[in-house]
């Protein structure tokens, strides 16, 4: 059991560790928060590996699901009672500027700020599709949403980002 947990954690870290870090980072923006959420993700992978019964492709979805939950959990700590996560968009948009490298490309910064304007569900769907290049079937497995609603989410996200970029002259 412990041996299995070690092996699964090792596999997850070497195969998906880097991608999971960036997936979390794109959601929480702050590097310190991303590190904390990655840590919690790995702890859950290790302690819950006994309950995982699946193949390699579902291992990837399982890890992404844990990582997404950890990232959103961390963001929930920042909102007040009865406020939705979407209310953090302004704060996260400002954080993008603070966290960006001094020599970062302006369009890359603005693009991240445009993503931060999206409602949380759209943002998660967009990031998983655009950056991680996952299929809608995989994203559906991670988020528990239907493939059709994810397609719609992605479509609306793209339109909103384009509008934002036009508005800010890119």
């Amino acid at each position, binding site marked *: 059991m*412990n041996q299995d947990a070690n092996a699964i*954690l090792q596999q997850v870290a070497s195969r998906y560790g880097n991608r999971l870090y960036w997936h979390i980072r794109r959601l929480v923006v702050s590097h310190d928060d991303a590190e904390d959420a990655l840590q919690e993700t790995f*702890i859950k992978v290790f302690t819950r590996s006994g309950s995982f019964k699946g193949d390699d492709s579902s291992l990837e979805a399982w890890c992404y699901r844990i990582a997404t939950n950890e990232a959103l959990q961390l963001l929930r700590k920042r909102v007040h009672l009865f406020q939705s996560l979407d209310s953090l968009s302004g704060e996260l948009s400002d954080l993008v500027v603070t966290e960006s490298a001094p020599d970062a490309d302006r369009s890359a910064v603005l693009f991240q700020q445009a993503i931060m304007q999206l409602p949380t569900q759209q943002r998660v769907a967009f990031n998983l599709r655009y950056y991680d290049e996952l299929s809608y079937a995989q994203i559906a497995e991670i988020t528990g949403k239907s493939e059709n609603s994810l397609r719609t989410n992605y479509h609306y996200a793209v339109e909103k980002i384009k509008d934002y970029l036009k508005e800010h002259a890119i």
Partner: protein
Amino acid sequence: MKEFGNINTELPYKESKSYVDAIVEKSMETARLHGRVERKMNRNLVYSLAGVAAAAAIVLAVVIPSGRKTLQPESSPIEMFLASISDSEAAMIVDWPIEDIPEYY
């Protein structure tokens, strides 16, 4: 993705791949350590709960039957009869002069 023309998937953050790899490695080691400690704590908790359950079972097995034993005589017909009579009536039974029983004459 062609939707955004010349904007590629590059992020504006400065962390390099080797730096993130080091973070992944560190997080993995910490998770292992944390997981082991958590499992050990859970195991200790299970042992403690098992100990408490065993002690409770012993108490139930020993105290309740002995309690029943002490209660049993009070609920027996003889005890109920003795409880229903006064002390003087009880003394009469004990000190009954056997030669006064008419049936024996």
